[in-house]
């Protein structure tokens, strides 16, 4: 659905939106201070933990979006970078290997491992097209899980590794928050740069892009390595925060699936999409859970389908990013749909608001 939303090409935030964003950031910065206020039960460590998880998801989804959304290489094994980051960190931090680096160094180490792996695995797999790439990455992911399992002396095999427990929620909150802000800014920057446009060009027509002078291999590998590195950092943080890792809690297929879902729900190939999508799904689950007990997963599934059917362009796509504030736009579209046809002085000449009609590009190849 949301491939469309990236039309919101060159974001021009309105002032209102900028102020809103600023307020949100300020709120998120001061939020942990609330844990020190006696007697209130809203801003608890558990709440901070939830935010931490959400920031991690936002970061991961944004990274996924760099390859999956911008470059069009839908990576079904992205969690492998997360996993390598987690294991890198875990191995570097645990005494049993006689290394025991400090946390920050170990996280960076893990992320570098993930990035290097991204480059190595990217060379063969990024030559594959469409679904074949997806499957190859899924294969890489599953294979890596088993490799971790059988290299017992280093990774602890199926038993896993125990990290020194250090559970400072506020610290993790700020770490993940900072990382999320950083990553989203990086994505925003990339999208505005020529590098970002080139990635999208590769997605749209790789052969054409190559012939028009884009070194596609270099671009793809670079994007892959950036995404791998950043997801590796998240993996490392997660490992530290979870205090123990084994192949089955680290390498979970559904972790990747969720990233895809979140990104798509928010808006594939947009900067804001993964953020909105991740936050929405996280929040939705909280609400749905509270209201439906036994049925909550069923309701969640139904909601997912409902959203896709009724908001096929993704949330960001629906809100539109091209002109005016979102509400205005929604309102305008609603009005527009009522007194058609013939609205507006010269609509045929005006740029249609969004790329594809319900019929897609009529007359094109499938």
């Amino acid at each position, binding site marked *: 659905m949301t491939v*469309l939303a990236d039309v919101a090409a060159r974001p021009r935030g309105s002032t209102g939106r900028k102020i809103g964003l600023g307020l949100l950031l300020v709120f998120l910065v001061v939020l942990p201070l609330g844990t020190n206020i006696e007697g209130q039960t809203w801003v608890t460590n558990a709440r901070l933990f939830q935010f931490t998880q959400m920031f991690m998801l936002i970061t991961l989804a944004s990274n996924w979006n760099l390859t999956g959304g911008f470059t069009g290489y839908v990576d079904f094994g992205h969690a492998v970078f997360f996993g390598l980051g987690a294991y890198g960190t875990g191995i570097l931090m645990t005494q049993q290997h006689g290394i025991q680096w400090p946390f920050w160094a170990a996280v960076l180490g893990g992320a570098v491992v993930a990035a290097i792996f991204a480059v190595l695995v990217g060379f063969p797999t990024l030559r594959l097209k469409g679904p074949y790439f997806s499957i190859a990455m899924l294969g890489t992911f599953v294979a890596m899980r088993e490799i971790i399992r059988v290299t017992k002396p280093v990774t602890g095999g199926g038993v896993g590794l125990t990290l020194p427990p250090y559970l400072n929620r506020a610290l993790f909150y700020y770490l993940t928050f900072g990382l999320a802000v950083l990553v989203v800014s990086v994505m925003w920057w990339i999208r505005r740069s020529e590098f970002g446009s080139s990635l999208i060009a590769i997605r749209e027509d790789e052969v054409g892009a190559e012939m*028009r002078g884009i070194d596609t291999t270099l671009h793809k590998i*670079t994007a892959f390595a950036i995404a791998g590195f950043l997801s590796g950092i998240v993996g490392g943080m997660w490992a530290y925060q979870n205090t123990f890792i084994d192949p089955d809690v680290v390498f979970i297929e559904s972790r990747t699936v969720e990233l895809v879902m979140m990104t798509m729900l928010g808006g594939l190939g947009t900067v804001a999409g993964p953020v909105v999508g991740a936050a929405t799904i996280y929040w939705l689950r909280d609400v749905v859970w509270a209201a439906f007990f036994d049925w909550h997963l069923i309701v969640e599934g139904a909601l997912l389908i409902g959203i896709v059917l009724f908001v096929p362009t993704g949330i960001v796509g629906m809100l539109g990013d091209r002109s005016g504030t979102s509400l205005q736009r929604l309102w305008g579209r609603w009005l527009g749909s009522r007194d058609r046809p013939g609205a507006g002085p010269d609509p045929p000449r005006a740029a249609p608001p969004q790329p594809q009609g319900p019929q897609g590009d009529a007359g094109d190849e499938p």
Partner: protein
Amino acid sequence: MTAIATEPLLEGRSVTKRFGGLIAVNDVDFVVYPREIVGLIGPNGSGKTTLFDCLSRVQPIDGGRVFFKGVEITRLKPHRVAHLGMARTFQVIRVYRKLTVLENLLVSRQWRGESLWNQLRPSHPDTEGQARRLIEFLTLEHLTDSPAGTLSGGQRRLLELGMALMPDPDLILLDEAASGVNPTLVETIKDRIRALNTEQGKAFLVVEHDMRFIADMCSRVYVLNYGEKLAEGTPQEVMANEAVIEAYFGA
């Protein structure tokens, strides 16, 4: 046109391309000199597009050698060829459908091997200005921010042309760039090509089924038939050639 003195800009020596048993391009020699507009014509399926594909290196070349600006490009990667200063359009349109018209042009700016680091900045205002002027020329102003996927067939073809002009190449391969374009606009395009040719010295290799286009623009023409070079010469010579008339223009 007395081009004999100069070095050829593009030169192919017995270029051959096979698809299984089918020989799509068979032992073809050709040259394009700087500041020249050369035509390439031939019946459908005679190997014109395939030859372009070989030049821009999407298709591996099975035999022969190709030189561009004195550099052998027979085995080069497509983007390297582009960096050398060769651009092309496509018969089957290849615009980036989800990028806007403006972005399509910006992203076609050629980097000539510029480092990735430099690309991590937004486009230079000059580049954007250049893109907007092109859009204006192509009469696509009202569509500047529309995704290319929403353009009509003819509009896409125009955009395609713009994308080839954008990187400021030395040689431009046009594959039926005027088909499906409104005749009035075709005249404008011809003027533009002539201007680029005379003022900036750009060379063109043009595939076109519109004979008026060929006759008006080209100084020399190659004719392909079943992958082989059937004739070459000035447009007038070629159009008078019996074999060409039989193979191409019909009785």
